[in-house]
């Protein structure tokens, strides 16, 4: 699903002669450089746009392309600042395009923190379209440059002031051959060189700037990309998955798996629907949480076994009584935290007499049933 969305976003702006696989690797590079797990489709639209924007070496005037590079780099550098700072550069002909591009970068950078991925995606698409429609001069040659089918054309914005964090823009259109990476110098020779390499159009895996393209690093990078993909798919499965850090994401996954396994254990303990089977789960004191109603109760009851917890029961009762003096709501919350609830005595006796079957020992099971029903009511009440 995700690669399709990327290709669709790219396909609307690509010409048919472009090679999708290398484009995919390019996007993967961009994701890697991000270093955290953005929502892929939200980043894809901006990446595609950035790609076209930067791969304009073939036919666009170099000044506008260089200005575009500056424009795109500066919002990255001034991440915390306002978008208007980028507009202050003023290299570009169209100031509105500058601000729009800055907003695009800003949105993309903040996109990882936002859980509302669809919203971001729509914003980016809108911004992208606006930026495309604004400014007749630059985007048209961008399209032309892109339409010639050269994704491989790398305009090299190898400014010495570029920080490693900004290798984003360079990495996105990184050099195919190491020779291109070695020369960060003049614009014109590079434009011609990139045009020459563009004409070859080899569907090779593009290496990042400064890295050799030997098979080991490629394999390593592929492996890392695979792992990142899998982490993203896991992120969708696990709730509370808005962590951008791989380590905290792993912690979240581990906790979730532990939680699910504990739930299975608890449910298997409460499933024992035989006569007297549930009684040992409950202590001798009445209305202590039966099998359900929170893992704490169940594990405490199971571990406690036959140990009399009446002291804790009276303590709970005292606590509840004290809370009820102050505020009814807090008392209810306290009980709910324990997996219990309050019910009128008449109702409790009615339920126990209604479900009491002949031939069973009277009090433990009745208390079990009451506790179970009470607990069940509270859990069903709190269920969304």
């Amino acid at each position, binding site marked *: 699903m995700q690669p399709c969305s990327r290709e669709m976003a790219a396909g609307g702006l690509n010409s048919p002669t472009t090679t999708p696989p290398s484009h995919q690797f390019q996007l993967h590079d961009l994701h890697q450089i991000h270093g955290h797990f953005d929502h892929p489709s939200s980043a894809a639209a901006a990446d595609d746009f950035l790609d076209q924007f930067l791969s304009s070496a073939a036919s666009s005037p170099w000044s506008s392309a260089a200005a575009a590079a500056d424009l795109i780099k500066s919002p990255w550098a001034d991440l915390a600042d306002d978008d208007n700072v980028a507009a202050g550069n003023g290299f570009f002909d169209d100031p509105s395009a500058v601000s729009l591009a800055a907003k695009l970068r800003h949105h993309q950078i903040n996109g990882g923190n936002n859980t509302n991925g669809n919203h971001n995606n729509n914003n980016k698409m809108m911004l992208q379209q606006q930026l495309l429609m604004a400014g007749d001069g630059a985007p048209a040659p961008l399209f032309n440059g892109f339409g010639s089918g050269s994704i491989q054309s790398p305009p090299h914005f190898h400014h010495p002031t570029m920080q490693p964090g900004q290798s984003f823009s360079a990495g996105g259109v990184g050099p195919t051959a190491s020779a291109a990476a070695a020369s960060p110098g003049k614009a014109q020779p590079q434009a011609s060189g990139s045009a020459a390499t563009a004409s070859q159009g080899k569907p090779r895996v593009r290496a990042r700037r400064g890295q050799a393209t030997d098979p080991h690093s490629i394999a390593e990078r592929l*492996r890392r990309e*695979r*792992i990142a993909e*899998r*982490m993203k*798919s*896991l992120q969708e*499965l*696990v709730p509370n998955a808005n962590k951008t850090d791989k*380590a905290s994401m*792993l*912690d979240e*996954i*581990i906790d*979730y*798996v*532990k939680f*699910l*396994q504990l*739930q*299975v*254990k608890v*449910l*298997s*303990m*409460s*499933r*024992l*629907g*035989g006569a*007297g*089977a549930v009684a*040992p*789960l409950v202590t001798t004191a009445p209305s202590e949480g039966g*099998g*359900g109603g929170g893992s704490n109760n169940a594990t405490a009851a199971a571990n406690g*076994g*036959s140990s009399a917890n009446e002291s804790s029961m009276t303590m709970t009762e005292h606590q509840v009584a004290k809370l009820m003096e102050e505020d009814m709501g807090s008392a209810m919350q306290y009980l709910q935290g324990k997996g219990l609830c309050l019910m009128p005595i008449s109702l409790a006796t009615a339920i126990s007499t209604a*479900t009491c079957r002949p031939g069973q020992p009277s009090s433990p099971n009745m208390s079990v*049933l009451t506790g*179970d029903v009470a607990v*069940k009511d509270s859990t069903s009440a709190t269920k969304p």
Partner: protein
Amino acid sequence: MSATTQQLERNFTHRFLTSLRRMNSPDSKTTTTHAAGLVIRRRSLRIKRAAYSSMARAAAGSHRAWTRAVLSRTRSQRRRQQHGVRPNYIIPPSQRRKSVKRAAKLKKKTKKKSVVRRLGRAGKLRELVPGGSRMEMGQLLEETAHYVQCLAVQVRVMQAVADHFSSSM
């Protein structure tokens, strides 16, 4: 809920309920003369094991490594429960060759934890996911995703069954 999840759920429910029914009906295995608490614990363990094995069988169509690991673990647990405290000496003939090799390996590695590759968080995940100690990172994450999916289905179904049983009491 996708179609595969629904199919998985139905498959698991069918197997699980079948195994529960088989467990509840009185047969020779259940008549033991142990203390009541132990019977309960045994029974809960049996239910948990039935849940995991039926889930593994239901999910076996997707050729996952963790299903095989779960099934082998279930089988060893069952044998351990049946034979009491002496699992090491009683070797069923089907497992004889493998268990000899395993015993030789276990002599070198004293603890179970030493088998698990200690890589920080990934090591913890390997412990949790069945069969995780033998996979590499990419496969581990894939198996974890499928395992989490199946666990969620399992919890949902078991909760529904528990509700049904407790309400119709």
